[in-house]
């Protein structure tokens, strides 16, 4: 990594840092913070799905674990928010290791890996909905104590800085991974697992490292969500919506690229807001747009678009 590689990331950080200086509308800030949280969750998915080619349909398992532990340690055990957040990330990574160990050791790939991750997320959702420590169906509420020492901020703009800083960190980490030996091995596994193995890549170890990093990052997004909205229930934390969001953004913005998830999250949520403005408050209409965009992106991959345009011009 040279200074030049970091330039686009620095530009992102600078722009994000300037936003609260010019934008005061709470609606806009809210939208931006939410989009950044999604971008962070999606960056986590990207490490495993984008670089490693292992498509998880259940990243809610990690998001929810990060979110719930951050909340539970504060509410039930009186822990400070920062160590609780760190513990949430650690547990999410551990859950990633456990799921990854079971799934990858059994050789699950492609659709089967997607199915098993989906099933794990659903198990967690049902358990969280029935368990007492998570607050069951009523959910769990973190007490409002707006103080930077509690990882809560009176101003939304301040929270935007925090979220942007974490996304920046995730971007740097992704770039570092891309340039690392692990990153190269991961891409090799994605492109041709058998060939990678034949060349001496320890496929299982590579996949496990990727899912641990991936789960930890998505878990961080969950913890951040908990600190921002201060409320969780099983449907929010472990619902399919976040699994889909985490997968959609990288696919739309470019899976296996450093900026893909951020770009995808901004495009998708920008589109969603635009749709809501045009179509009014019809429930679900923004998600219909997500679905259409997903199919179009798969049908016409963005990296092919320059080629398509060239052919079309002729």
């Amino acid at each position, binding site marked *: 990594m040279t200074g030049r590689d970091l330039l686009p990331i620095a530009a992102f950080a600078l722009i994000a840092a300037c936003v609260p200086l010019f934008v005061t509308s709470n609606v806009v800030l809210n939208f931006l913070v939410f989009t950044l949280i999604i971008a962070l969750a999606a960056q986590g998915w990207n490490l495993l799905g984008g670089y490693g*080619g292992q*498509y998880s*349909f259940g990243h809610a398992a990690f998001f929810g674990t990060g979110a719930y532990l951050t909340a539970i340690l504060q509410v039930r055990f009186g822990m400070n928010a920062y160590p609780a957040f760190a513990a949430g990330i650690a547990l999410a990574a551990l859950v990633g290791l456990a799921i990854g160990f*079971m*799934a990858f050791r*059994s*050789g*699950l790939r*492609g*659709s*089967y890996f*997607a*199915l*098993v991750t*989906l*099933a*794990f997320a*659903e*198990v967690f959702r*049902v*358990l969280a*909905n*029935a368990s007492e420590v998570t607050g069951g*169906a009523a959910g769990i509420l973190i007490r409002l104590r707006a103080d930077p020492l509690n990882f809560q901020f009176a101003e939304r703009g301040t929270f935007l800085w925090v979220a942007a800083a974490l996304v920046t960190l995730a971007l740097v980490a992704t770039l570092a991974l891309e340039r690392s030996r692990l990153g190269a091995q991961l891409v090799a596994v994605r492109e041709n697992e058998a060939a990678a193995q034949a060349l001496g890549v320890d496929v299982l170890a590579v996949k496990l490292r990727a899912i641990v990093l991936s789960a930890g990052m998505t878990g961080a997004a969950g913890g951040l969500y908990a600190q921002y909205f201060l409320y969780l229930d099983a449907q929010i934390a472990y619902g*399919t919506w976040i699994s*889909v969001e985490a*997968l959609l953004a990288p*696919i739309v913005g470019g899976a296996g690229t450093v900026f893909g998830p951020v770009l995808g999250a901004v495009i998708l949520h920008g589109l969603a807001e635009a749709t809501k403005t045009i179509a009014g408050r*019809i*429930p*679900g*209409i923004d*998600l*219909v747009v*997500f*679905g*259409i965009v*997903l*199919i179009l992106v*798969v*049908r016409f991959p963005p990296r092919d678009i320059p080629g398509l345009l060239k052919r079309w011009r002729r």
Partner: protein
Amino acid sequence: MGFPPEIILEAVLNGLLTGAVYGLVALGLTLVYGVLHIINFAHGALLTAAMYAAYVARASFGVDPYVAALPLAALFFGVGYLVQRLVIGPASRGKDENILLVTLGLSIIIENLMLAVFRSDTRSIDVPYAMEVIEFGPALLSYPRVIGFGATILVGIALFVLMRFTATGKAIRAVAKERTGAALVGIDVAHIYAVTFGIGTACLAISAALLLPSFYVSPRVGNAFVLVAFTIVVLGGMGSVVGALVGGLVIGVVESLSGLYLGESLGQIGIFLIFILVLLVRPTGLFGARA
């Protein structure tokens, strides 16, 4: 274990009856897998759409769901055919991950269109026989579920006849076994793919009509069924029609018993655990079927 034998017997029998309809939902999934080798993530959303269609038939036109079953099956055959021919086929360009994503996209679109049109309220239809029961020895069986069981068996037989004795069935089996070979002898593979997808969707329409008298409809109702259906398909062996029906019965009983012992909210856990366990413990069997 705490329950008198009649209660347990009743739970097992009702589980078998519900399981048969689960099996019918899974039948469409396994058929599509067996021939197209794709996991259709839009299966649940298509079931939701079919349940709303049956709901509208009853609520707006007064047609009994059992009467509507066959016309709906024809309609959804068309829907399935077109979806495969116009969307999934062209968009996936033969890649596994693409099919995964395209069918996921379809399910998001269908589910949320239902949400936009019908809003998130749960709805149910009002039929005179919804609460009726049939006495079977010491057990009381729900009338709609007995009908569902019988109809599933009929559909199973019809499907068997179709696959075994018709030219289309022969072509489907040929494509499932050896796509390139089938294409070489002049079978239109894209057409057969779409027909198979259509048959799978038609099975869903019949399941929807059978489920409606005893289940609520909501935009997300398909999700619950599709995870059950995935479990059944994995348990019964991907692509196996008999496996789907037998797996359906097993899962129906498991759900019924774990609901009895663990309570409603934890009852689903049993199914998911079986699902994960089968995926993890017997992956070679699964991949053997895939190759």
